[in-house]
């Protein structure tokens, strides 16, 4: 039996394209049909954002980028429409813009328990769909408990910054790889896929990698 194909994904919890891209990747991987092992890595889009930013994402983007509110609203409406096309019901009116470093620490904690994929999905849904605050330890611990992690253990680890070094290692690795934007998918350590590509792109690259592996395997057997 062949080894699963490894996919490393750099992503941030407050990145709309990361959630949309996650759905598109999942659709592409399902169409590929083979076994795929996914590992998420931390990427902080805006590490200087305060945990308790008092304002909407529209105001935040307008202030940070000097864009008129109407332009930001139009942009978010378009993103919401694209999210809807992949089955995601974004609710920007209730999104809490925040610092995501604690959410990333929680994803690493979940990885240590074999629950990273569930935690990642739970956090994205909490942020974009449910209007939950993913910057506060208490709220993060509640979300972790919802997927079956030990709430007290999560609080202790987040307050002690037990997994902060893992977050920073991921961020540094992204910089070393020249990754400037997310989502960024690394397929089998060879192919890089940037952004929320269409599912077919992921299917094609997974098939390409499978084909290359099979060819290498055949060549080894022929020797």
């Amino acid at each position: 039996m062949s080894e699963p194909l490894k996919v490393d994904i750099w992503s941030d919890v407050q990145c709309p394209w990361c959630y949309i891209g996650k759905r598109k990747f999942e659709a592409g991987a399902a169409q590929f049909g083979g076994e795929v092992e996914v590992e998420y890595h931390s990427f902080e889009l805006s590490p200087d954002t305060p945990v308790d930013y008092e304002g909407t994402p529209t105001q935040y983007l307008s202030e940070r980028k000097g864009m008129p509110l109407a332009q930001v609203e139009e942009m978010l409406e378009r993103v919401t429409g694209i999210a809807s096309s992949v089955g995601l019901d974004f609710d920007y009116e209730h999104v809490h813009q925040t610092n995501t470093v604690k959410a990333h620490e929680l994803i690493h904690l979940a990885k240590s328990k074999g629950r990273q994929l569930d935690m990642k999905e739970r956090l994205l849904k909490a942020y974009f769909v449910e209007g939950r605050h993913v910057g506060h330890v208490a709220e993060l611990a509640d979300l972790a408990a919802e997927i079956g992690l030990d709430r007290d253990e999560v609080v202790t680890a987040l307050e002690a910054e037990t997994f902060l070094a893992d977050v920073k290692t991921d961020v540094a690795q992204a910089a070393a790889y020249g990754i400037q934007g997310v989502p960024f998918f690394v397929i089998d350590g060879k192919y890089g896929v940037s952004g929320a590509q269409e599912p077919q792109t992921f299917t094609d690259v997974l098939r390409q990698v499978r084909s290359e592996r099979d060819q290498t395997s055949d060549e080894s057997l022929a020797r």
Partner: protein
Amino acid sequence: MSTAPVSPFVLVGDPTAGACEGDVCAVPEAREPVAGPEDQEQGPSPAEEDAQR
């Protein structure tokens, strides 16, 4: 001013696909069909090699 490192990966897909950089999450316009990995920075695929034989 530092320069971003060159990607060690073979980059595939539409370079204008939606992505976030810093605070900016660009919204792409309607796009052309996406090229597969065999069309980009790669030699011929095994299938193409077979077809050429």
